[in-house]
């Protein structure tokens, strides 16, 4: 058994800001995630303590560009895909 329980799923869904919607769904996700995490435990059998993690496929260095001003997006464009705007701003429900 892995450590995935419905409580873990609900906690993680809360962190990800996704409503689980129903107890039934929570249980479904629990079962599926449990199977995947359980399978991934196979990595535990490998001796990896001396190995460096590889976060990226390429050796990358910072690439700098000239700090030159260019034409930005217009306000209209930036707001054009939003469902709710007012006075040139994104409009959201109250925060508190």
């Amino acid at each position, binding site marked *: 058994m892995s450590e*995935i329980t419905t409580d*873990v*799923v609900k906690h*993680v*869904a809360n*962190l*990800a*800001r*996704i*409503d*689980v*919607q129903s107890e039934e769904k929570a249980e479904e*996700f629990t079962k*599926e*995630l449990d*199977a*995947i*995490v359980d*399978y*991934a435990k*196979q*990595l*535990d059998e*490998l001796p*990896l303590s001396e*190995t*460096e*993690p*590889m*976060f*990226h*496929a*390429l050796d*990358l260095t*910072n*690439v700098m*560009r000239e700090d030159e001003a260019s034409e930005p*997006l217009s306000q209209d*464009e*930036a707001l*054009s*895909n*939003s*469902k*709710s705007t007012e006075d040139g701003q*994104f409009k*959201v*429900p*109250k*925060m*508190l």
Partner: protein
Amino acid sequence: MNIYELTVEELYEKIAQKEMKPSEVVGALFEDIEKIDDTLGSFLFVNKENALKQAEHLDELQAQDKMEGELFGVPMGIKDNIVTKDVLTTCASRMLEDFHPIYDATVMEKLNGESSVLMGKNNMDEFAMGGSNETSYFKNVRNPWDTDAVPGGSSGGSAAAVAAGLVPYSLGSDTGGSVRQPASFCGVVGMKPTYGRVSRYGLVAFASSLDQIGPITRNVRDNAKILNIISGTNHRDATSMPDVDQDFLEGIDADLSGKKIAVPEEFLGEGIDQEVTDAVEKAIKTFEDMGATVDRVSFPHIKYVVSAYYLIASSEASSNLARFDGIRYGYRAEGTKTLEELYRKTRAEGFGEEVKRRILLGTFVLSAGHYDQYYIRAQKLRSKLEEDMLKTFEDYDLIIGPTTTSAAYDIGEKIDDKLRMYKDDILTIPANLTGMPSISIPCGLSGKKRPIGLQIIGNHFEESKVYNAAYKFEEKYNLHEELKEVQKELR
């Protein structure tokens, strides 16, 4: 001669020679799309009005002998996770059902710059998460070879449209096999270039350290030609590598004698269908007949790659998809009273189940107490795998094997067993984890007459070697005639 059978190079030639007008080509393919895409479902949006207008303009330029661009008048399909200015881009998700991008992806700027004509946006698995195109919010895609079968995924619409002759080429994206696996299932050619070869600017991010855009075509030369055009560095993507100004068509027909090829024994062992193994063994023989040496090697870490991939890709996805909050673009839930509630409801209603599953998995993996155990171990496995593969490339030019564990399966056959579907990606994942280029080309047909794909993997930035081997193999074996039958049958 049928327009739908013509390749990128043939269409370009015929238009350049004024044997055909761009509007004739574009018009004929729209007729085909209207006739058969209700069945196939390979397009989510058909860009007819814009494309016809552009084609008429190109007709005028043709008449005035002012044809410019290496793809002048050649139609294209584009996977719906690549943004196209003012043209609907949904990622096959309810979340972006009415999203009209305000800019073009770099690859679109390049293709538009060569006067290619955008025919529409290709269906896909939602946010590129899936291997059968069954997670699309809008509709399934059917395999042109057998409409009971899946086309593969996530670039299933792209592969199906190219195979069916609705477009001569399409772009897909490949995070764990999403260009190569559908290319294999649909009997066409799909390339995942080296990570960093093609700018990802304007590709809706799934797993940023793995994602790469690649061409899907009906033959190897067309594929190399499209990659020539879309590759190159770009200041908007800091992970795109500096231009090396390579022409992938140069030396594509070079002799293979003396080339050294490795076949990982794990690629032909347990879990691979016998008919796939048989087709690949035949392909190995073909390479030997062409003068290449083929040896068996072992990659002991292959059996861990599915675990590592799903931990890493889901982690990156959970972070990348945090941007879909209902505020600046995309779906917004109705009737919410607080900002918190808006986020939670928007994301619950806007994302499909597979996307949520992966966000939850990724959030779990990155959460306190699990990061070292899962995420770091997965990244360490990645180092081990790269070590194995780089060592092989010290002695060998290429690695070959099957693209998939089986030919295309039936729609509905596997969708309920998530882990089983994940495990199917074992053969394509290594190239993503290591960033190496890899192509899928047809190498056989299954008993049910469904295509089988051969995968050819090269070392970093050695696409030329990959294309060379693929082209020489294609001269000996291809499905071009069979595909024409499939296309005729559909019409």
